[in-house]
């Protein structure tokens, strides 16, 4: 017998209530409001499944974003019962209370309902921190020859910092970003730390200071660390912010 069946004796499915903030600026006359939806919980139901069910069976006008629905693409950040989360991998049964409130993430440009424009901000971030390997010689490397060696643990360290999926949850959870819209935020700091760690990138601490040295950079952080608390990839934001401050303070 399947062990999970033994652990979960059959019980009546719950009735869920979703309270969703609605507003579509492209719909003439639309006003912000909270709309309520009711549906029956199913086995393994995530917020992804619930929202699609609502849209396909109750209200086709509802707008939201999902792409991979597997927790890896970073498209579906939203505020679930007050906390920023990836909706695709949030199980409804993780909430004891069957009433779930959904809001779009703050900080980002609202597209409609639960859909916000994180992509635009992330491209701007990548341009600002110049999110690529800086090496004037790189295009002279012969790609038919043996590749330059890299210590295995260095490769692993870089990967650990590159696991950010640009979902924007760190920014939605960031007190400083609420006050200063040009504050770079944890995703940007993590990107800088990733390239700082990479021996292929020839930028110096001085070069990075140019990017991070002002109040919109790493010294502007109020260290509330919502980023650390809510990052769906459990990236070491606190440690990297401290690391960058130490490195840049000494330049």
């Amino acid at each position, binding site marked *: 017998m*399947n*062990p*999970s069946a033994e652990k979960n004796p059959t019980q009546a499915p719950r009735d869920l209530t979703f309270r969703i903030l609605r507003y*579509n*600026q*492209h*719909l003439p006359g639309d006003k912000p409001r909270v709309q309520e939806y009711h549906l029956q919980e*199913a*086995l*393994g139901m995530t917020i992804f499944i619930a929202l699609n069910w609502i*849209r*396909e069976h109750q209200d*086709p*006008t*509802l*707008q*939201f974003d*999902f*792409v*991979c*629905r*597997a*927790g*890896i*693409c*970073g*498209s579906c950040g939203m505020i679930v019962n007050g906390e920023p989360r990836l909706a695709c991998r949030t*199980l409804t*049964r993780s909430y004891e209370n069957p009433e779930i409130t959904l809001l779009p993430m703050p900080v980002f440009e609202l*597209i*409609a*309902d639960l*859909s916000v*424009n*994180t*992509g635009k901000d992330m*491209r701007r971030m*990548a341009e600002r921190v110049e999110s*690529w*390997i800086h090496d004037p010689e*790189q295009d002279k*490397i012969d*790609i*038919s020859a*043996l*590749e*330059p*060696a*890299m*210590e*295995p643990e260095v*490769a*692993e360290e*870089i*990967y650990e910092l*590159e696991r950010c*999926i*640009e979902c924007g949850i760190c920014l939605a959870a960031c007190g400083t970003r609420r006050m200063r819209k040009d504050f770079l935020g944890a995703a940007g700091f993590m990107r800088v730390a990733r390239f700082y760690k*990479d021996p*292929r990138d020839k930028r110096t601490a001085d070069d990075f200071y140019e990017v991070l040295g002002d109040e919109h950079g790493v010294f502007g952080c109020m260290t509330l660390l919502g980023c650390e608390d809510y990052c769906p990839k459990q990236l070491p934001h606190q440690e990297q912010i401290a690391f960058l401050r130490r490195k840049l303070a000494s330049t």
Partner: protein
Amino acid sequence: MNIIYTDHLVIGGGLAGLRTAIATKERGQDAIIVSLVPAKRSHSAAAQGGMQASLGNSLMGEGDDEDVHFGDTVRGSDWGCDQKVARMFVNTAPKAIRQLAVWGVPWSRVQAGPRHAVINAQTVTLTEKIEAHGLITARDFGGTKKWRTCYTSDGTGHTMLYAMDNRAIQDKIPVHERQEAIALIHEGDVCFGAIVRDLITGKLSAYVAKATTIATGGYGRLYSTTTNALICKGTGAGIALDTGKVALGNMEAVQFHPTAIVPAGILVTEGCRGDGGLLRDVDGYRFMPDYEPEKKELASRDVVSRRMTEHIRKGKGVASPYGYHLWLDITNLGREHIEKNLREVKDICEYFLGIDPAVEWIPVRPTQHYSMGGVRTDENGMAYGLKGLFAVGEAACWDLHGFNRLGGNSVAETVVAGMIVGERVADYIEAHQIDIGTQLVQRFLKQEQEAINRLMARDQGENAWELRNQMQEVMMEHVGIFRNAKDLEAGVEKLKALLVRSQKIAIKTKATGANAELTEALRVPKMIRLALCVAYGALQRTESRGAHAREDFPARDDANWLKRTLAYWKNPGDLLPQLKYEPLNVKEMELPPGFRGYGKANIVEHPDTAARLAEVEQVKAELKEQGRHAIQAKLMPVDLPLRYQDTNERLFRGRT
């Protein structure tokens, strides 16, 4: 009238699209990418396994080279692939991976000295050589003779996509996000760009370009259960088909993976079974040994998927609100092994099922995974039927994969095709000037706008999502893992009926922009036409080859079916595609047709096979002294872009 001019319009911002755009940009041309989503959110990020390239750095990869990779790829395709394309691909893959290393991918590296590995459920010690220390390492994968699959911990696709998009940002290539190409602009036999709809504002623009590249990924979402992202709807192939001029190749070639979780359809890796995991049915019974006494759970992907389906049909599936499934049991591997070696599986189980796979079974079922078919192109990536139109990656039928794709060859294809085809696009742009009247652009814009207006004006009619869901069920039920004439015929009829109904879709959402219902309504008729290409192509192909398994025609019939299906949609009012066939030339093959090595050999031989086999053996004997490169060039010369013609260096072997 909003018109944007560029040299190169790329539709799709995943690995293939980005790499093709980079190729032309770095030749000094303008490129614009339009993408449904931000580039870094593309489905390329989901690639778990890795990228095949015959570097041969690690112990278990020693002796690997382009020739071994070529043989694996052709056999994997069940001889359905274009061997010239496969040859260009295997020769360029080592360069692609090394270039990505320069661009920032933190590939996992060889650690010199002894380490433990599990091979065939036995723990063995492998001792890596000191000279290989720090070079790119590789892991084992199905259907390969060597350990050739390079990877980045558990995030290969993610790191590749991020390095590639970062390079595109460095090159200042604009990515117009949340834009959907809904029609190609064309006249005579030339493509001039695309009509693009802004998914935020709903406004239409015309992108006029000297060259247009379709890189929109696969059509997995034609099926109700798929590992593919929600955006993999084949719409790039759809707009190509809608021209009435462009051919789609081998649309019936669709791969299923045995173990995706239910209901989410998210893939759990083959490593679960490789490490000793078992498949169980509704009674908790381990059923695979009854079907495949020798290989059991570790038979090839297509075989396991077929056996699981058979068992569910016998009434041994587990009922759930999301349909029948079976169990994957990895509890026997122990918590330590799972938390150390199967970290991503544990995460998926925790987040999507709320279960602990160390003590609970995982609900799984065979799930659509990869589209071998797509926009049929020549070796240079140019589409059949329209000049100036190219296709790359999963969206294309360049035909690297034939009727079955080898694991690890998909992300490799995206990058390699981007490199090779990108050069050909740049050559084309250099040689052609655009000559197009604004009247033509206006006509296409007007046509699309009017179609949208008609949809928006209809108050009563069909529901787009309901039609889509029905289509997906038909595909799953009738055009799935096992196929036969009776089911396929019924499936085709149901799809035809759905296509008729799709002309009557009504929209309840009256927003001009940010309108998911309208977006879906525009896609659904295209998707049903693609589904008909798959179903009708499968019905006509009366043989079994690779992933196309006909219960009523179990033999691989080289005598009659060593040919590629080409599907055209000649008139908008048609209810079926027009099929043509393109023979594969055995006389030009570097590796003539043979036995793939699974199950019993059941092949109707092609009349040219024996003669070509003898010829190949003769050439190999004659040119033995001159080495493998000379033999290869004699057997099947290929034309790679100049910058990718150098031979690849390997440890201890140099460039031999």
